């Protein structure tokens, strides 16, 4: 079955003024090669048939749309959950790694590198590398290695080499720096699987296309289930790949409210947050022009969130443009509210969400009263929360 990809909104690798290829000269040839390959494959039905069959038989797609009547009653809407948590490896991340691994195979590059924060993208990359017999090296901040021991073990079990990064903030930003350094040194043999809709062109377009399966499935499922389009679609935003994948199915449906939820961390006024679109300014990091948390001297500010997957000072350039044009509303939810959302979805629906996703749950709870009780509201349940259980138990004093 042919897949209809979202219309390309980028012009020459830019969404409005955002995006571009701000990288060391050494990487330009590889980005050019990747772009040329991808631009050719975008219209190649055989490629998308192969991609679709792996998503079906290995990842387990399509993922279900689940009614959430008890939490729905609390927020006063008909709440529908898009179950990306039920994908193989437990999050939406694998949609992208499948697509990029197919590109690496076509380029004859058998060494794969990746960055990871909480470890979900690292696990998804290690998984697909094991499946295709590719060498896999994952860079992970030393602090995240300590906090996410289980995911580190999973990656190693899958045959990946996990390299702890001790520089700078010792989190996702510095893991990405180190992955870029590796790529500069090994670019003839190595493909870098970036985990979100960030980085230089063509990554933001390419990763969006691989994640657009979320929005495509969801739109058809909601129409079939409710006979109408959702009133509101909500997703959490760190780099923004699950959100852009979901939103891409609804951007042309002007009546559908699209809402991205960033991490307010310890509060917007504390300065310790990851709300890049709400509090950042345009700047260049990791090869792309987008909103960026930075100081008056243009130094990148450390991000903070209880959720390692949102703990990133940048955001995808397409989100920057959707923010400026007003097509998507962006809001922020703090650590405390996210922890409450985490527990509330578990108690009301029997689903433990990833802490990233819990930010979107928390926004819905905060906005109760915004909808009529029969308005369909669609939440992208981007990942499951098993990885976060020990961390949350320690934070809330429930460990014993």
């Amino acid at each position, binding site marked *: 079955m042919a897949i209809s990809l979202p219309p390309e909104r980028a012009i020459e690798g830019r969404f409005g003024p955002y995006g*571009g*290829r*701000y*990288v*060391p*000269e*050494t*990487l*330009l*040839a*590889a980005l050019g090669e990747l772009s040329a390959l991808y631009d050719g494959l975008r219209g190649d039905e055989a490629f998308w048939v192969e991609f679709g069959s792996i998503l079906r038989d290995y990842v387990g797609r399509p993922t279900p749309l689940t009614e959430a009547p008890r939490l729905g009653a609390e927020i006063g809407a008909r709440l529908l959950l898009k179950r990306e948590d039920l994908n193989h490896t437990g999050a939406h991340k694998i949609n992208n790694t499948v697509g990029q691994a197919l590109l690496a195979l076509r380029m004859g590059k058998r060494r794969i590198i990746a960055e990871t924060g909480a470890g979900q993208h690292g696990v998804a990359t290690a998984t697909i590398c094991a499946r295709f017999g590719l060498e896999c090296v994952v860079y992970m901040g030393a602090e995240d290695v300590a906090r996410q021991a289980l995911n580190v073990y999973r990656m190693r079990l899958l045959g990946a080499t996990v390299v702890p990064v001790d*520089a*700078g903030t010792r989190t996702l*930003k*510095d893991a990405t*720096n180190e992955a*870029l*350094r590796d790529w*500069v*040194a*090994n*670019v*003839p043999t190595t493909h870098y699987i970036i985990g979100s809709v960030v980085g230089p062109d063509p990554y933001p377009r390419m990763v969006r296309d691989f994640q657009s399966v979320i929005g495509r499935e969801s739109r058809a499922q909601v129409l079939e289930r409710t006979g109408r389009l959702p009133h509101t679609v909500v997703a959490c935003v760190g780099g923004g790949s699950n959100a852009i994948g979901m939103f891409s199915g609804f951007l042309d449906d002007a009546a559908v409210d699209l809402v991205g939820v960033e991490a307010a961390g310890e509060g917007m006024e504390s300065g310790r947050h990851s709300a890049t679109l709400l509090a950042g*300014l*345009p*700047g*260049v*990091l*990791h*090869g792309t022009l987008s909103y*960026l948390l*930075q100081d*008056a*001297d*243009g*130094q*990148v500010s450390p991000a903070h969130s209880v959720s390692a997957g949102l703990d990133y000072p940048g955001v995808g350039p397409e989100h920057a443009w959707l923010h400026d044009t007003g097509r998507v509303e962006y809001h922020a939810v703090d650590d405390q509210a996210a922890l409450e959302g985490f527990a509330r979805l578990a108690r009301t629906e029997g689903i433990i969400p990833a802490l990233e996703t819990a930010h979107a749950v928390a926004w819905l709870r905060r906005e109760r009263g915004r909808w009529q009780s029969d308005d369909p509201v669609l939440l992208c349940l981007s990942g499951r929360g098993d990885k976060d259980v020990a961390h949350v138990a320690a934070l809330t004093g429930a460990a014993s």
Partner: protein
Amino acid sequence: MLGAPWDSLCRPDKSALIAYLTAGYPDRATSAGALRAASLGADILEVGVPFSDPVADGPVIQRASFDALAAGMSLRGTLDLIAESDVACPVVLFSYLNPLLRYGFERLLADAAEAGVDGLLVTDLPVGADPAIEALVAASPLDLIPLVSPTTAPARIVEIDARASSFLYLIGRLGVTGAGVPPDAGLPEMVARVRARSTRPLAVGFGISTPAQVGAVAQVADGVVVGSALVQALGRGGVPALEALLAELAPACARTSGPVHSRV
């Protein structure tokens, strides 16, 4: 025509020694003395603006960057430092893009020229990435120094040459800055590949740290860049150690086999 600041890149008997230092490292006062000393011991000085996310740099310059930032260095501070250091040779400001964007490009170009900067090298602004910025630099008194890499395709070398106004900077090997792997036996061929498409002087950098390595590169290039080794010497032994290493490196720039460049 090549501007006067870059005359040292046109000498038949020796290659220019280009010294890189990170502004504000290890501290502001030492850094001022180090810039002055390096400008006396080398032919061209590259002054690095410290940045929080130096993806093109290896461990030595990363650490220098972080230490300089922790000690309060900034882009404005870097320009002040250059202006105050009584620098005795041409200066290239070496930076990542974001601090320059935040400062404002037009303001930066004016302030840098006033501080005594002659050229600008931006690691994450490859030729063609941002025509608006490139046009601003072209209209300023500063020369934009483009990078060429071992992966740059021949047709792109021509394009890069067309946008350059002074010299080209060839990255001598794949990877980030720092000692470890020096440019290898493939360097002369790489240099020839660039020279076949450009008549501009060519500086070579990345991975060059010892007098022997400088000597080898000087036989084929118009300029040899040494960075991490100088930063490391400065960190370990202060300005005297920096001066001692420069004194070892400078004679290694002499050419034993005559001019390398048909233009000179």
